[in-house]
């Protein structure tokens, strides 16, 4: 079946360092969404990418969707302690309805 792999599983960085998480799908996606889950919280939507090769920015966060629409990345520049949490990608395929497969998540810890 369809799989969405996400790496790394964990990442510890010093505050101010950059961070990147990668998402890879076994099949071509219609679109991809990214979510952030703070410790003890629930996933909160960050962004959706739809077009092949799309790049979107939200302040220090840069999201990319691969040309083949099978991979995506989230890059955080100059991490802050408020970036702590688990970042999930969710790849969508469409066959009458949209179905999302979530990645396993990357847990980010930022050391002050």
């Amino acid at each position: 079946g369809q799989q969405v792999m996400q790496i790394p599983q964990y990442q510890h960085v010093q505050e101010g360092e950059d961070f990147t998480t990668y998402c890879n799908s076994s099949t071509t996606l219609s679109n991809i969404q990214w979510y952030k889950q703070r410790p003890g919280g629930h996933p909160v939507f960050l962004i959706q990418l739809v077009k092949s090769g799309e790049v979107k920015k939200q302040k220090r966060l840069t999201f990319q969707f691969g040309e083949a629409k099978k991979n995506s990345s989230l890059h955080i520049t100059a991490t802050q302690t408020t970036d702590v949490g688990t970042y999930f990608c969710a790849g969508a395929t469409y066959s009458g309805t949209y179905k999302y497969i979530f990645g396993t998540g990357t847990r980010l810890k930022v050391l002050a």
Partner: protein
Amino acid sequence: DVKVTQSSRYLVKRTGEKVFLECVQDMDHENMFWYRQDPGLGLRLIYFSYDVKMKEKGDIPEGYSVSREKKERFSLILESASTNQTSMYLCASSLSPGLGAISYEQYFGPGTRLTVT
């Protein structure tokens, strides 16, 4: 603001019990989802519903059933709870896209941490 609420934050049940998890959303969303979240496995889709009385199996439906009698409410039922169903259960809702439209973001509830002993 969209609000998705779940009936309990924490629940402890015994093996073999029938368990009901309730989810209510207040934004008239067509789509509703049930996920379970386990360390290292991310979020896995159990069931989803795109309309009242409509449901589709997700990736791990075994041991679960669902009910959607009203648009705002989506229930997850564990017919006979087992220890391997100990997990965090997350409900989510979203708008349904029109024909040819892209999909919409999912709004999650706070989760129910279920322990089956």
